[in-house]
């Protein structure tokens, strides 16, 4: 594109005009939105220009929709902002088609698949120790009132005969990869929410693969054929409704056995409110116990009740932002796009201890362990980061974070541990440390490495690279920091262990609360409503 500057300037001014009159812009011309991360501008093309959209693979990475503008012999490409706007093509309105795929009792289902004798029994995956929580439970267990995020001790009281399993993160992750393989056959527009849950935008696949409903059934069938696991799929015009629909398609627990669900639930365009309004208000995202209490004062129990409250009243009760937000949700207005590959902002690990630590020494060792694991994941992802954050939760749940930013991005265990140790020095552990976390943020691509004049640092980098090579070839436990050597070999922190609290039966029960909510350690949460 030559003379691009002037042309760009002209276009930009025209965009401003078009944006101001965008309401009238859609009839005779194609309406497109440019990929400006903040303001999706509406651009009206005039007679000399032709606009068309197509899917291309940009820069060999993720597929993107681009708009191609041909104007006076020039061709402009611009990636299209996946805006919530409907696409108007020749006057035909096309609705978005969003799928929410959610595995049924994922972790438990995987365990039952491995050991069929567990089928039909109350099975709980989660931390079994005094501080553990339920990560996932079978429908038989749910019939006893057990649900995910419940303290394991309470689950055990509710159903003493339940089978407790510690959970095998590696296996679930493997299954998750398999699931994503299936999903990727249908669309590249996948937003993974957790290991077993994802949004898909199949709007672009309809011509090839059929309607959203047809795709939903194929996905469900293919997952079952290939993985032996059941899933539920919601089909709707927004993420909010798709998620609620998949929930409505789930099996139900009852004391006499599991009642199969619909498998696929569709909320047809136009029928959104009929589906949404009878649901309890707590079904909406962002309505937790606190908000519910406030809404109670208005006599709100269903989403429909909420929709009837004037937005100003809602804003008064809940604050401007969340009031406005809830009002929109209550009317089924959810314009968020399915965003594949949400950029990772930080990488971290944290661990709750069966017993509080009161001294620096064991904590220093834990920091080495966490830093080593964080560094491994950073290197795997080809990232490095400049801000190191140490998180400390005390026995009374008071939680503090301390951070330090270094000039050159880190991705090796020893330098990470060094910074984290310095941060730990500033923390007094004497009240008892319950949880420790190390994370790295301000991430950059590790496609270049600032070389150093410092021999020791250079050696540390060489060592870190050698360690990663050895681990890649001989496994994660083949080599590690000497300080992590225990009686049973290297005590490495692995992603996913300790996800749901320590499993080892601890010493005397602590005075504090006996469980806590699942943490998003390793970027994964419990499968909450599978």
């Amino acid at each position, binding site marked *: 594109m030559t003379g691009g500057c002037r042309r760009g300037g002209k276009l930009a001014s025209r965009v401003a005009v078009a944006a101001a009159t965008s309401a009238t812009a859609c009839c005779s011309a194609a309406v497109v939105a440019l990929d400006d991360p903040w303001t999706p501008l509406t651009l009206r093309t005039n007679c000399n220009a032709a606009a068309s959209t197509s899917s291309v693979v940009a820069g060999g990475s993720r597929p993107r929709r681009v708009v191609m503008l041909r104007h006076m012999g020039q061709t402009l490409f611009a990636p299209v902002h996946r805006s919530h706007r409907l696409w108007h093509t020749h006057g035909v309105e096309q609705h978005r088609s969003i799928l929410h795929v959610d595995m049924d009792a994922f972790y438990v289902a995987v365990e039952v698949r491995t050991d069929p004798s567990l089928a039909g029994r109350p099975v709980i995956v989660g931390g079994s120790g005094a501080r553990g929580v339920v990560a996932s439970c079978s429908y038989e267990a749910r019939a006893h009132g057990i649900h995910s995020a419940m303290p394991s001790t309470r689950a055990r009281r509710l159903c003493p005969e339940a089978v407790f399993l510690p959970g095998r993160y590696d296996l679930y992750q493997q299954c998750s990869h398999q699931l994503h393989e299936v999903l990727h056959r249908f669309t590249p527009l996948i937003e993974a929410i957790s290991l077993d849950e994802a949004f898909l935008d199949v709007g672009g696949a309809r011509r090839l693969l059929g309607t959203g409903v047809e795709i939903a059934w194929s996905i469900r069938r293919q997952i079952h054929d290939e993985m032996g696991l059941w899933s539920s799929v919601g089909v709707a015009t927004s993420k909010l409704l798709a998620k609620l629909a998949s929930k409505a398609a789930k099996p139900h627990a009852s004391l006499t056995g599991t009642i199969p669900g619909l498998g696929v639930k569709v909320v047809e365009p136009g029928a959104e409110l009929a589906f949404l309004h009878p649901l309890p208000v707590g079904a909406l995202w962002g309505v937790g116990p606190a908000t519910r209490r406030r809404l109670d004062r208005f006599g709100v129990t269903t989403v429909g009740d909420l929709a009837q409250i004037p937005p100003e009243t809602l804003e008064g009760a809940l604050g401007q932002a969340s009031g406005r937000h809830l009002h929109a949700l209550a009317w089924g207005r959810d314009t968020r796009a399915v965003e594949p590959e949400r950029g990772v902002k930080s990488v971290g690990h944290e661990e709750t201890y069966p017993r509080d630590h009161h001294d620096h020494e064991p904590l220093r060792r834990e920091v080495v362990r966490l830093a080593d694991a964080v560094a491994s994941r950073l290197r795997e992802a080809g990232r490095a980061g400049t801000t190191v954050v140490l998180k400390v939760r005390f026995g009374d749940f008071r939680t503090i974070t301390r951070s330090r930013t270094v000039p050159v991005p880190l991705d090796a265990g020893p330098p990470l541990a060094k910074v984290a140790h310095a941060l730990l020095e500033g923390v007094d552990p004497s009240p008892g440390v319950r949880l420790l976390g190390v994370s790295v943020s301000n991430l950059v691509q590790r496609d*270049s490495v600032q*070389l150093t*004049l410092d021999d020791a640092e250079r050696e540390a980098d060489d060592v870190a690279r050698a360690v990663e090579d050895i681990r890649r070839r001989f496994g994660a436990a083949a080599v590690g920091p000497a300080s992590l050597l225990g009686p049973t070999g290297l005590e490495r922190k692995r992603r996913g262990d300790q996800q749901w609290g320590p499993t080892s039966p601890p010493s005397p029960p602590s005075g504090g609360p006996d469980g806590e909510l699942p943490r998003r350690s390793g970027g994964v949460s419990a499968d909450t409503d599978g």
Partner: protein
Amino acid sequence: MKFSCERDVLLEALAVASRAATGRGGSLPVLSGVRLEVGGDRLYVAGSDLDLTIRVETQVKGSQDGVCVLPARTVTEITRALEAGAVSIESDEDEAHLSSGRYRSSLRALPADDFPRVPALTRGDGGVTEGVVNLDVGDVGQALRQVVRAASSDDARPILTGVLMTAEEGGLRLVATDSYRLAIRDLPGRNVLGEGQQVLVPSKALAELQRLLPSVSEVELAFGDHDATFDLAGVRLTTRLIEGDFPNYRQLIPSSYPNRLVVDKEEIQGALRRVRLLARDATTPVRLALRPDTIELSVVTSDLGQASEEVDSKYEGTEMTVAFNPGYLVDGIEATDGDEVSLETIDALRPAIIRGTGSEEFLYLLMPVRVS
């Protein structure tokens, strides 16, 4: 304690001294204050973070001698906000009253006894300097501008946060490195230290010194065993020296370079400024393709795009591409004297040297970035 003076006189003294005061929430609360002392018609205002102390001396109309420590930020902000004119401060042990025109305030004082003693120069038997040395401000200012930027800001590596001052062939040499680059500046003929002696001065103190230099014509320098003092007209800056061994920087400087590039300083600065705009973050490297008559500078950021610009140059050596952190490269080029700048390299993985042509007194060593 009681004195009065013009608003501007007080403000300048407070603003300078409080730069050494710590923020709130430090381990020693009194350090967030400035110490005001009146003796006759002299007012001394001091701020300190234990490592660095800045003391300003100024003329006021004193009515009663005494000492008082006031919260640095508050008292400075108040003074800044006052209308021009006379200000008077009167204090007892617990409280200070500040008034100007129709404005009145009373401020709770910090315990003056807790304030660290403004260190007197400790000149032991093995004292580093015999006396006091006067330095030309222009030279010192330029040397600081060239060197201080290369010091590390990472407190985890205290040695590297200092600037090494060392006696070198009858002159003074300043050296700083953050382990990614190294800056060396010689001030020939400035005998500040005994031959072979060296001290490590915190770069933070030197940065403060740098700020103060433009307003004076001469600086007096004296070294003690554990501290250094810089005396400027009315301002005394005392800093604790960093203990420890500075890395052996001499061995880092290669003895010869097979490749040498000479390029116009302004042109390469302009080109760098432009191509850098496409760097995603501070660590996105800039690549220099070195060729006989031109060099090409380029930045590639996968999601954003790429930019390149050619600059005329004289280059002798093997054609190659070498990448640098753009910030470090800009720092180095900016620090050089003269209209042209030279870049000497061995290969894309070993340190390169940047100098201003025609000046042997400054050298900037820079490690490349390895790009995959």
